[in-house]
């Protein structure tokens, strides 16, 4: 009874594929055909006979004290098997990725709209929802804290030219949402002259709205009670082992009794790094003794995961007359919402990389993460770097305008390169082709002007809505460049585990790769196969279902899996290869130095040796399991921010060309061009896919994507009003992928997924500014910002 009848990644055969292609090839995804044909089972497709449906009752208030919860009417509803509240959580009642501060179910206070308060399991989802509506919660509604600076007691800025923005004393005037106060983290970067002066000074304030990951597959999972008193959870997630750890803590069960298997994941982008229904479904399954499925609908999904931190930022750039950066001062505020989630690490990224990929001798950055009663914010693609890029790249454009310099020229003049020191004192010890990325963009041809010949409405701002035939339309071009750390930073023990098996199945040598690394749509399963093919010289590679019966692979985030789990798979393959070659040498009876694996055989180029693996292995199985780590990073100094914080950086740049209907404020992005250094493209087609997807997500934040919050309440929890780009919004792209190997990384590769998400939006914003001549300091840009109405 412990196996669902529909498992998302299916039997291992599903991920075998007839495939071919090693490292550097455009290998086909093993799950590609299933997905295109609509046959791939996602978490929401999980099903077992006799299962119950779980639903969550959530707080309608952003901040309230709970006087009492009465579940009697819900329990009395026919078809209901269980109604649970915080009292029913057997273990630790709070959890969290970095700080355990978030209740599994609300204790005495709710701190955001949508906070889970109670759970219901019933034989039908409609029955469960009806019963949930019958739970009576008596709330004492409190005044919510909805602004990060107010939460910290910092004054809001109203004078752009007041250059003393740093506030050292926290006045703590607003309500304390947590016992330690409302400050989650304050990161300081201090380098060079504390009181620098410069010929030219540019000050700006910027704001970034709250973006959602907008993954298409809602939070879903199925918890199955096990005979040993434990539970098996099939769930769509990003990091099985960090889920397992938190679930064990809440259930007071050891890891052996909480077994997780990855269900089909329909996108993640950081939004599945925190727990959603995981503990809830397990609690209901253990209470009822029956499998329990939970699957959020679209509206609940907007309340069921963290979002990208909104940011308010104030920057001051000083430069010489001829365009050399002298100093940057920045104050960056991230609104973390009600619970910490990954706010400390987001502050880490925002602060350490907050001035962009430039060489600046004097830097003074204060980066804050605050608790408020807004929805909790945490991981999202770009992780703290997306927000600051809007600010620092806008500043570079403003500075270029002030200096009368070309914006690309100014950037190239100050660009980081290999050997440059970052503001945290880290010397960049692998290629950093910032200027080259920009120069290559500049050299690309520009798209034809609009309005030549017959008007095609699809090319116009507004599309087929027929708002302009060219009237009011002006073109603009903008550039941006960005960088981001790859993998986990600041001394975190970042590792992955891989188990690789080699055997002969049906006469064919077959490798099986077993890791717990979550495939969320990015194509890691393809990469795992490619690496095994290259390292073991076999065609047939089975990707074992992702589960916790192997060690942690770390998170599918921070652009890290190809690097870290790819590194682990490569190392495990090498171990297996050693065993195979040793066996081959025993067979031939002597040492052959150039023995290698190719085409399913052990071969030598210097001697005429070809030993088919089928003969060499017989019925034997060779296997290796190991943990692999990238070189260690260090914690940064709490007062100066100095230290070897990040193991690798990814660099990308964008050029955006836009047409803006300046009278109506509507934007058509005409073309996006991107250059990115990926070190080594393990799967070039997948790399291009990541660049296109990241670009679209960045474009979305620039012109439309925002969760609108008023008084702590979400006003647009649906895809009717939370808009993401369509094919008429996302233009064709020009992409150049550079491959400058990082000598410290497996195959020389760099993480790919996040960088293009960071530089795309600021380029679009710069292009809109160029088209309109308006300062535009907030994203997403709304039509009203352009028309002034």
């Amino acid at each position, binding site marked *: 009874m412990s196996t669902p009848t529909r498992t998302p990644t299916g039997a291992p055969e599903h991920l075998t594929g007839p495939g071919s292609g090693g490292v550097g090839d455009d290998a086909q995804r093993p799950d590609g055909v299933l997905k295109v044909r609509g046959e791939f089972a996602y978490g929401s497709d999980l099903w077992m006979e006799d299962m119950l449906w779980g639903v969550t009752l959530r707080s309608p208030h952003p901040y309230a004290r709970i006087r009492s919860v009465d579940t009697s009417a819900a329990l009395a509803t026919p078809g209901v098997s269980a109604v649970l509240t915080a009292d029913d959580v057997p273990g630790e009642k709070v959890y969290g990725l970095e700080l355990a501060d978030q209740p599994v179910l609300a204790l005495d206070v709710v701190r955001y709209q949508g906070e889970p308060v109670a759970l219901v399991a019933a034989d039908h989802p409609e029955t469960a929802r009806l019963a949930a509506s019958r739970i009576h919660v008596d709330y004492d509604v409190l005044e919510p804290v909805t602004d990060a600076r107010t939460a910290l007691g910092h004054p809001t800025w109203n004078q752009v030219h007041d250059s003393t923005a740093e506030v050292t004393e926290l006045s703590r005037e607003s309500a304390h949402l947590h016992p330690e106060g409302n400050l989650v983290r304050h990161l300081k970067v201090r380098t060079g002259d504390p009181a620098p002066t410069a010929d030219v000074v540019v000050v700006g304030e910027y704001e970034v709205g709250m973006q959602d990951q907008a993954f298409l597959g809602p939070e879903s999972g199925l918890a199955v009670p096990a005979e040993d008193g434990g539970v098996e959870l099939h769930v769509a997630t990003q990091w099985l082992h960090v889920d397992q750890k938190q679930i064990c803590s809440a259930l007071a069960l050891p890891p052996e009794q909480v077994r997780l298997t990855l269900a089909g994941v329909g996108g993640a982008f950081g939004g599945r790094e925190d727990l959603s229904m995981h503990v809830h479904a397990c609690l209901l399954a253990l209470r009822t003794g029956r499998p329990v499925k939970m699957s959020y609908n*679209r509206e609940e999904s907007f309340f069921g995961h963290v979002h990208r931190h909104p940011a308010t930022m104030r920057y001051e750039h000083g430069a010489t007359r001829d365009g050399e950066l002298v100093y940057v001062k920045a104050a960056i505020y991230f609104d973390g919402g009600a619970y910490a989630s990954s706010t400390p690490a987001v502050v880490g990224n925002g602060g350490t990389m907050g001035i962009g990929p430039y060489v600046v001798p004097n830097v003074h950055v204060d980066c804050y993460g605050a608790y408020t009663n807004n929805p909790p914010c945490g991981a999202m693609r770009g992780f703290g770097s997306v927000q600051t890029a809007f600010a620092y790249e806008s500043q570079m454009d403003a500075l270029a305008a002030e200096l009368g310099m070309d914006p690309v020229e100014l950037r190239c003049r100050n660009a980081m390169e290999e050997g440059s020191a970052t503001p945290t004192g880290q010397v960049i010890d692998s290629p950093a082709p910032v200027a080259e990325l920009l120069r290559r963009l500049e050299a690309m041809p520009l798209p034809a002007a609009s309005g030549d010949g017959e008007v095609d409405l699809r090319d116009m701002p507004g599309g087929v*809505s*027929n708002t302009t035939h060219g009237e009011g339309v002006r073109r603009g071009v903008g550039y941006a460049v960005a960088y981001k750390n790859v993998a986990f930073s600041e001394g975190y023990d970042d590792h992955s585990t891989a188990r690789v098996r080699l055997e002969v199945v049906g006469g064919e040598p077959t490798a099986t790769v077993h890791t717990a690394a979550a495939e969320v749509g990015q194509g890691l399963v393809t990469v795992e196969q490619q690496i095994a093919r290259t390292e073991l010289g076999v065609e047939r590679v089975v990707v074992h279902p992702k589960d916790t019966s192997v060690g942690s692979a770390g998170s599918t985030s921070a652009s890290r899996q190809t690097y870290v789990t790819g590194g682990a798979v490569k190392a495990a393959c090498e171990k297996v290869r050693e065993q195979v070659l040793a066996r081959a040498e025993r067979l031939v009876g002597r040492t052959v130095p150039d023995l290698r694996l190719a085409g399913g055989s052990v071969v030598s180029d210097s001697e005429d040796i070809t030993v088919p693996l089928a003969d060499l292995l017989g019925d034997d199985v060779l296997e290796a399991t190991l943990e692999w780590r990238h070189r260690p990073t260090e914690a940064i100094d709490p007062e100066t921010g100095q230290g070897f914080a990040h193991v690798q950086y990814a660099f990308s740049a964008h050029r955006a060309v836009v047409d803006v209907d300046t009278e*109506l404020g509507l934007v058509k992005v005409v073309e996006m061009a991107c250059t990115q250094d990926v070190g080594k493209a393990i799967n070039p087609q997948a790399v291009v896919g990541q660049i296109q997807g990241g670009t679209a997500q960045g474009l979305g934040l620039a012109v*439309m994507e925002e969760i609108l919050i008023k008084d702590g309440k979400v*006003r647009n929890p649906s895809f009717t009003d939370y808009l993401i780009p*369509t094919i008429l919004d996302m233009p064709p792209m020009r992409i150049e992928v550079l491959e400058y190997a990082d000598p410290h990384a497996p195959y020389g590769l760099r993480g790919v997924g996040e960088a293009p998400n960071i530089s795309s939006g600021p380029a679009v914003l710069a292009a809109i500014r160029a088209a309109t001549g308006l300062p535009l300091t907030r994203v997403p840009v709304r*039509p*009203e910002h352009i028309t002034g109405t």
Partner: protein
Amino acid sequence: MDFLQPATWAEALEAKAAHPDAVPIAGGTDVMVGLNFGHLRPARLLDLTRVADLRDWQVADGAVRLGAAVSYARVISELGDRLPGLAMASRTIGSPQIRNRGTVAGNLATASPAGDAHPALLAAGAGVEVASARGTRRIPIDDFYTGVKRNAMDDDELIAAVHVALPSGPQQYSKIGTRNAMVIAVAAFGLALHPDRRAVGTGIGSAAPTPRRAPAAEEFLAGELDSSGLWESRAELPEATIARFGELVAAAAAPIDDVRGSARYRVHALSVMARRALTWAWADYRNSANQGA
């Protein structure tokens, strides 16, 4: 929830008479969203997809009778020349999948102020044919919208068809959304020139509690065209006339601030859309004379 499936129009009217609370469903592009989000839990659904007559359209007496279950996709592909304003509006609706399912009658039944078809129907001076077991009546489009998501139909009535006169002059339709496709209107504007009766029709969407016309703008423009002999001369429209028309259209709106846009922006956008729509429509009118049409 009961699911009623009449096979004929007569059966449908009987079912509606017997169960006035039954929610009619044809394309389902509104109803199914309500059901899926849990916002709608009707006791009964009345499925109209088996009533074949509703999928027909005919031309008679100088007007199109558009059956209630004709999809937007068919309005675009089959009626683009006969119902140009409505076809332009239909092109702005949702995705191809939605246009294949959704119907003009569904837009009317929901009567959302943001419904895309309404400004085109108002500008063209459409009539809504509604029926019940008691009989059939025609509701002029001006009287149809009675409040936010309310219309002039009785509980036992169903929409049989929409009647729209064949165009005697150019029609235009513009809609503002905050992305370039698949978006609910922030504001929309429909315009129809009626040279046969020397009149001007307008329709405003998403900028008042109901879709509405801009009567002062219509009268102003018709008056200018008349007094200056422009219907006959087809001379260029004075800039001042175009600008004034835009102002009067904007003045007819009574919008609110909401997540999709500010009231001020809606007013501004209406004036711009009205000016541009008039410019394009008048250029078409002048062109049609040059081509001898």
